[in-house]
């Protein structure tokens, strides 16, 4: 039983367009509420330079993660990059986001969350989807694995239907698991 590790979460807008301050503020509050850690919305001007893949016309989430780890604010213990560009990992056609399991960085994209078979979701719906994906990826950085409860925010979601089916919170089991991880410290996520 170790002491709880002090965590500062930074939510960093790294998109190509302008940041939506209200949405970032909502994300910050939700992250604080779910994980009970201090969070900050960060508006640094740096952007990952070499993440674009011209062949795929998408951005490599793995390269963004690498850049986030190198460029994150010194005070942060975890950073979530939020972007509006479409993300991929080499083996998959796209990803909503990627995180280092039990690590310091995660990235989430709004690109596929705001397109639903040609229909644009309203602002609240988009904010809700983004919040779920941010909390989901942040959960991975705390060492949480995918949950088999479809309503849990840690459930694997590869379609918008699955994203919309989730609640923006941890289920009972994941909450217990999160508590155990926080008391064990990093690196004990298995």
């Amino acid at each position: 039983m170790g002491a709880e590790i002090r965590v500062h979460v930074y939510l960093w807008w790294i998109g190509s367009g302008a940041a939506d301050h209200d949405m970032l503020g909502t994300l910050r509050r939700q992250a604080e509420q779910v994980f009970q850690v201090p969070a900050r919305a960060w508006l640094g001007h740096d952007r990952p330079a070499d993440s674009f893949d011209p062949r795929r016309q998408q951005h490599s989430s793995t390269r963004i993660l690498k850049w986030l780890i190198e460029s994150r604010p010194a005070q942060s213990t975890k950073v979530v990059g939020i972007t509006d560009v479409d993300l991929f990992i080499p083996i998959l056609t796209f990803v909503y986001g990627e995180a280092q399991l039990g690590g310091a960085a995660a990235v989430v994209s709004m690109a596929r969350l705001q397109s639903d078979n040609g229909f644009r979701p309203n602002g609240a719906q988009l904010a809700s989807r983004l919040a779920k994906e941010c909390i989901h990826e942040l959960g991975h950085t705390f060492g949480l694995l995918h949950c088999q409860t479809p309503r849990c925010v840690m459930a694997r979601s590869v379609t918008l239907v699955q994203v919309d089916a989730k609640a923006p919170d941890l289920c009972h089991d994941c909450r217990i698991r999160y508590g155990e991880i926080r008391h064990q410290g990093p690196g004990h996520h298995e």
Partner: protein
Amino acid sequence: MSRERTRILIVDDEEIVRESLSAWLEKDGYTLATAQDGETAIDRVKKERWSILLVDLKMPGIDGLQVLENVRKVQPDAAAVIMTAYATVDTAVAAMKLGAYDYLVKPFDPEELSLMVQKIVAQQALVRENVLLRKVLKRDYHFRDLISKSPAMQAVFDLARTAARSNSTILVLGESGTGKELLARAIYAESPRRQGPFVAMSCAALTETLLESELFGHEKGAFTGAVARRKGTFETADGGTLFLDEIGDISAKLQLDLLRVLEGRQFTRVGGSEPVKVDVRIIAATNRDLQKAVAEGHFREDLFYRLNVIPVHLPPLRDRLEDMPLLVEHFLEQLGAEMNKQVDNVSAEAMGLLMAHTWPGNVRELRNILERAMVVATGRVIEASDLGLRRPPCIDGSPTLASLEDVERHHIGRVLHDAHGNISQAARTLGIDRATLYNKLRKYQLRKDGEPEFEENETA
């Protein structure tokens, strides 16, 4: 639980593919490992158990199809998925022919990958559950080394379990090969005497004098060659159980000797005069009709009643054919372990032949036939031709129709067998006179026990 037990091996020569795929699947809680080439993959498949293999088709050296071929041989239960950058019909067909679970074209749609892995995990969980349930079911069908789900045998098991707790003499009746000694051993193992010895003795194998000496022992000098005092099986079994097989075959003198032991629990060694007291539980067995032997004066009535305290009738295999699939599975497992050869099942046609056979040698004969079939079988399924059984004439549902003569020959054989070779009884059952039956036996070259005089060799 399924996720923790699921072990995935990713085989790809591109490091970025290995890393990104394992990082993606790792978050589902699966155990992951990677191999950078076909050679490493084959090595890991030989050494460790895998649930799923995601294998790149094109790799330098050993390619994905060769890895797949190896997986099918070494771990046929693992699901191997081929990954390819360029899907062609040819590669897909080749992969599926080699037993690939599926193939994926790079880059994959995340939903496609997720659904496929979930499906494999669910299927493998079902297979495991099925194996577990079958084991539980089989445990219910077991009485030690005996296995049956037929109501008649279940009644035997119940009676035997109850009888095991007592000290009473048990008489096991049943045809040759029905498992009389196995039942005796099971009763012994379930009895309070299981800490004592179990001694089995076949009374048919020896001459009267030898059997007497074997049962009761002898004193030094009792007969030529008796150079030292020797304990008999009764003394050896003291405190335990003595199984006397073929009890219906013993001579009148030994019947009397045995009766005395059963009455007084003591005997004298051959050539001796000192009574020897023993505490032995007797389980006797015979394939003869002892009541008939008593009626005909061949077996002592008083001994019969002494032995027949708890009679247990083991039904012949032909009367419990519902056990055939269970017994086949049991023997394939047992023989597979003994012979270090894996055979999973018998074909539907082979099972048809097994069900149609009359099994004069009962379960022992079945085991022998399956042992032969395991030796000659080339694949993991025993085919009808591997059994070396004569095809029965078509009666019920066989693919080809038999001639009237074939049906008659088969039917006479069966009736004769059921009548234990008794011509008069068989003739009565068939509704013909004895002379006609003799003529037909000559015509069809059948012996009195219903078996043909010579076996027809069936070419494989």
